[in-house]
């Protein structure tokens, strides 16, 4: 796999790895500012997956023949890449999932159904994506546990001074938080939340969907118990994701989905479970996708995770400066110094749908939505925002076109 740039990130060159930028939108160059929703894919990933299907395809595991062994080797090599990326102690602690949503549901069901009950409390944050909010809310309800939410201040940052009050609600059993907010770009103090969770005897579940593709994430340094992310935001294919779980917990847990591969021995009377991580991978995995995710990990690693973080930091500073010049634009969330490459904003008197629609006519793709964070929207007193977000192929010209497009929005709705 040949990635074009080694040291400092050169987005103009990297961009050429992404075929989609060769295709104009409404006759305009594509300005793709929706990477927080899903990233584009480099040729390297698409090529590798195609080659896998064309030369090494067979169902993984249980296959004695060479083709099946090669498929299995590709799949398992990807597991090691995930392990290395997030510095998990062992591949036994790396579970392939469909997306981060499935990983978080796995924890909520397989850990939550057996470990939550009346008197217990599940805690999430007001910044959570629904994927790390609704499962805890609903499993708490099913098991009779309490559900509490850590609030935010007006800059969109967690109010850790509210933790003591939350601890009064009962026995805190789980704290679930994202590392980076997908709506505001807030970078959350997971280390401090983890310390607090562990003081309470609770487990710490981290949604790193917006973090792993963009910054160094180390599960051992964080000290968390579970951490999930999703392939399609990381230059990888749809249909894949990964969940890290601490071995002691995974071993003690019931499985989640059940079927082939995750069993050791099935009889009419009872069933015993396979070793980790297979105990949590039921049925034929999305193994070509998991393999593709591994190739994507190679790609971003070769570009350099730190280089990506630094570059996106530059871009977000730039866009915040430019937006600050528009008095009719409201920006939500923390200052550039404390946020990832994500900016939510609104244009006075114009609905974000209309903003996104008019930007689209200029080839500029932004998301207009509640971004699956309705509790946060309510806290901000709005129902939706327009959101621009960056990745390693984003270029300053796209920000120019965004700003130009916003002027057009303003003109249409004058």
């Amino acid at each position, binding site marked *: 796999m040949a990635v074009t740039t080694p040291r400092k990130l050169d987005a103009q060159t990297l961009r050429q790895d992404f075929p989609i930028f060769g295709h104009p939108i409404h006759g305009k160059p594509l300005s793709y500012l929706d990477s927080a929703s899903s990233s584009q894919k480099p040729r390297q990933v698409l090529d590798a997956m195609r080659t896998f299907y064309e030369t090494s395809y067979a169902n993984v595991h249980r296959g004695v023949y060479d083709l099946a062994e090669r498929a299995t080797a590709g799949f398992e090599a990807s597991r090691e890449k995930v392990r290395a990326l997030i510095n998990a102690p062992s591949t036994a602690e790396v579970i392939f999932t469909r997306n981060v949503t499935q990983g978080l549901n796995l924890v909520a069901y397989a850990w939550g159904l057996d470990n939550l009950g009346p008197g217990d409390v599940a805690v999430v944050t007001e910044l959570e994506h629904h994927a790390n909010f609704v499962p805890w809310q609903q499993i708490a309800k099913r098991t009779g546990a309490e559900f509490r939410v850590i609030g935010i201040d007006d800059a969109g940052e967690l109010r850790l001074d509210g933790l003591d009050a939350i601890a009064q609600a009962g026995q805190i059993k789980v704290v679930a938080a994202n590392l980076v907010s997908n709506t505001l770009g807030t970078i959350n103090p997971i280390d401090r939340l983890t310390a607090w969770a562990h003081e309470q005897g609770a487990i710490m579940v981290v949604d790193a969907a917006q973090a792993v593709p963009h910054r160094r994430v180390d599960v051992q340094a964080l000290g968390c118990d579970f951490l999930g992310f999703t392939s399609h935001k990381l230059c990888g294919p749809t249909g894949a994701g990964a969940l890290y779980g601490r071995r002691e917990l995974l071993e003690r847990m019931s499985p989640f989905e059940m079927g082939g591969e995750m069993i050791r021995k099935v009889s009419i009377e009872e069933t015993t479970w396979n070793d980790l991580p297979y105990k949590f991978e039921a049925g034929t995995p999305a193994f070509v996708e998991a393999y593709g995710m591994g190739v994507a990990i190679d790609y971003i690693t070769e570009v350099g995770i730190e280089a990506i973080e630094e570059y996106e930091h530059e871009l977000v500073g730039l866009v915040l400066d430019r937006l600050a010049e528009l008095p009719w634009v409201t920006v939500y969330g923390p200052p550039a110094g404390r946020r990832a490459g994500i900016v939510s904003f609104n244009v006075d008197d114009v609905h974000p*749908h*209309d903003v996104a629609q008019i930007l689209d006519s200029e080839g500029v793709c932004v998301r207009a939505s509640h971004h699956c964070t309705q509790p946060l929207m309510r806290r901000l007193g709005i129902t939706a925002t327009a959101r621009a977000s960056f990745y390693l192929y984003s270029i300053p010209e796209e920000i120019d076109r965004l700003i130009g497009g916003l002027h057009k929005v303003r003109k249409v709705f004058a």
Partner: protein
Amino acid sequence: MDDQLYREIILDHYKNPRGHGVIEDADAEADGMNPLCGDEVSIYVAFAEDGETIEDVKFSGRGCAISQAATSMLMELAVGKTADEVARMPRDELLEEIGVPLQNNPTRLKCALLGLTTLKVALHKAKGTPLPDGLAGFDELELK
């Protein structure tokens, strides 16, 4: 595309919505929501003495230009019609009235149809008639 979408008439209805407001003690009433953006609309209907003809209809809530303009136009369309006529109004009738090209834009289509769907739900509930296929699911979900 936006130039066709954001025609003068759409922007006019958006800025000056007809029938914006609330009818206290309405004969029919429903809340609708566009799960894509969280926008909500409430629709209120007052029947004439015959209990069939829509004498007054109003909406409240905020949303994008397409949803607001479409709902505003719908208010004009619905007044004077019977509940039954509106409940069976094909969506294309409203779309023609709006006159913007949404065929490649199912997301915005949902915006455009939010008002109509909510109005139909309100009428079916008031009349106790079963919700037709496309509206099933709105039943419990949409109504408080």
